[in-house]
């Protein structure tokens, strides 16, 4: 064989080996930090600019907020521009807060009706360095407006009486006198109502730890309860 052709073949042979080795860089055993090909990851939300149809949508902080302006602004605009994805009812408000995360700046929204939080209704968006917005999670559901007229609400004592004194208020220092309200929604969204949150002890129970209980503010019905998890036994 012509020595020149032989050299070319050896050269290309080496190139093939080198290239195979280079491709093996994609294998799992590479150290982090070595340059490699980037793969873009995006949820593929391409809604683009959609006409704002929900004019009463209220987002707090409003647009033009100075703190974390870019991420919050972009996330707010994303929600406004994509009513098909979120279907936010006009009587619901969103409050956004930004948090840094290596996967992109997170914007967490809590959902409220007239300032009362709706339990479990959260939306989390992420804003990448390229300003692309994608959904991390969306627990929002377009439920009916919840009755909030306090004239029809039971007091805590009235609620406890409804349960024949089965529960009594916790006397732990941090619980004393504490009472708050949330809107609580059933897992299947069949029911949403105002709940009164109190820390109670179940009378006669061996469990001495207070129960964080949610009762219907209107009927006293027990809607949710939570016992703090013990760590060891």
């Amino acid at each position, binding site marked *: 064989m*012509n020595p020149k052709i032989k050299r070319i073949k050896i050269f*290309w042979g080496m*190139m*093939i080996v080198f290239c195979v080795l*280079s491709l093996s860089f*994609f*294998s*799992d055993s*590479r*150290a*982090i*930090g*070595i*340059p*490699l*090909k*980037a*793969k873009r*990851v995006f949820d593929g939300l391409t809604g683009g600019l959609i006409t704002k149809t929900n004019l009463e949508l209220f987002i707090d902080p409003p647009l033009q907020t100075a703190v974390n302006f870019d991420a919050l602004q972009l996330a707010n605009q994303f929600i406004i521009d994509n009513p098909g994805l979120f279907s936010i009812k006009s009587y619901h408000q969103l409050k956004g*807060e930004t*948090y*840094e*995360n*290596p*996967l992109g700046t*997170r914007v967490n929204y809590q959902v409220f009706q007239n300032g009362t*939080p709706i339990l*479990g209704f*959260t939306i*989390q968006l992420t804003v990448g*360095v390229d300003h692309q917005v994608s959904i*991390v*999670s969306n*627990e929002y559901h377009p439920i009916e407006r919840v009755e909030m007229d306090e004239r029809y609400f039971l007091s805590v004592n009235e609620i406890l009486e409804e*349960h024949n004194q*089965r529960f009594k208020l916790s006397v*732990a*220092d*941090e619980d004393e006198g*504490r009472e*708050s309200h*949330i809107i609580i929604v059933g*897992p*299947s969204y069949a*029911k949403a109502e105002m709940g009164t949150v109190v820390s109670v002890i*179940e*009378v*006669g*129970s061996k469990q*001495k*730890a*207070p129960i*964080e209980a949610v009762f219907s503010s209107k009927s006293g019905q*027990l809607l949710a*309860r*939570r016992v*703090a*998890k013990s*760590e*060891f036994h």
Partner: protein
Amino acid sequence: MRFTVFDMIVRLVGVLSFLTLMSCGRLVTECGGTPLNISHLTQIQRAAFTSNTKASLVIPNPLDATGNIGIQSMDSSLINALSDLFLPNLSAGSRLENNFLKVRINSINDSPEILATPNSNGQYAFPITDIHYGETMAYHSMNAIQTYVEALGFQTNKARPLFVMVNATGSTNNPEEVNAFYSHNYFDTTAPRTLKIYGDTAFSPRQDRDIYWHEFGHYLLESLTSDRGVDFAGDSGSIFSEGAAIHECIADYGAESLSGRGYLGRWIARNFSEFTAGSPLRSAEDKNDDFNNFSKVATFDSTKKNLNRYRIGEWCTRVLWDIRRQIVQENSNEGRFYADRMIFAAASLLKRDTSVTSLKSALLQADEQLNCGIHSHSVKNAFESRGFSSDIPALALPLKLKASIVWLRDERGQLTREFSVSFILTNPNSDRARNVRLILESTDARISPVVYQQSYGDLGSGKTVSVGGNSSLPIDYSVVGSVAPNQNYQGAPFNLRIKSENAPDAIIPGVL
């Protein structure tokens, strides 16, 4: 010169490979994995902070600091194990607190006069058995792990303060009862987060950094996931769920990885008779026990031993430790930090009522976004090698349920307005059903699901779960619904749904 077909192919492959090589020449940062400040992280990991305020502590606890498995907190030789440390980020030098973290003894409302204050040298230095030592350990530990997580790039939710009570009151009056509760106060959005430590023993948990780091992990996971309820069912009262197991897993992993020890709780385990002296409470490293293989921690049997979040939780830490070990092998100096970042990033992707399957997907997604997916094989292999396969056969038949309504009585024997269901649940398929759950769904406004979901793990072919009546499991292992006082609930409908990851849903309608 003549070119053969072979030459042409060789040249074509060469050119393509060259182009591939060129396209490889992009930085990993383009995947989102920005470089970490390794020297800062290393300082945090070594507790090499600086500030105006000093403390004197045995780090991480007397047993691990001395290597003496028989040592007790009143042992005078412990004075030789004390280290001088700094307490950064204090709001004021005379209180162990800042805008977010607030250390107390008994309760949130402790009088300031009873709390620890520095000595005339500006130092928080107390005997190990002193309650103020526990306060100092609490501040140091919680601040250290908070700082570490932030240095990895995770900003946490500090909208509500976190109170740490190192000798909490309220649960029990028995000082021998050792425990720790983290409460996110999920329902009461006006309440602070609380961490309550119980137990005034010779091996008190307040003297152990591991306990604080583990409990911080619960706060971290809720914060990273925007309170969306990684263990929503558990928060609502279910006895077991994979979400609860993953909560424990992430909390344990964070403590184990930051300490670099692969286990936790050797000190606190001295309080429990089932642990021999020097054994850890839980271990991410392999041991000769059940926690190396998924089927041993997840398969339902009548002993109900696997309806325990710590069993899948400990198995899960071993999976994460395998992944961490692989990344550390690749990069011995920095890998631990990159592993933690990837695993915490994955945790931030978990959805409501998460599962082991979801954790695996989240790890792959986080690796893809941070590292261009270069650890995908390690992640898959870690799960597979520990018995968790995603390639499980799809079952043809839904699970079978035979149920009846049980009205619950309170501790005084009086009927309540809550009902449950006793039932027999059977897997009629020829293979196991994965992550079996019973869900109470309300289809009528009169019924509210209180404990809306219970989980029973993996159910083998032909196996049954039997709850209530004379069954192996008490009615506490079932779902609970409520009706309003003084309201007619007769005829109110509901559904019982049986879910499994590889079987069709079964929906059984019911009527009160």
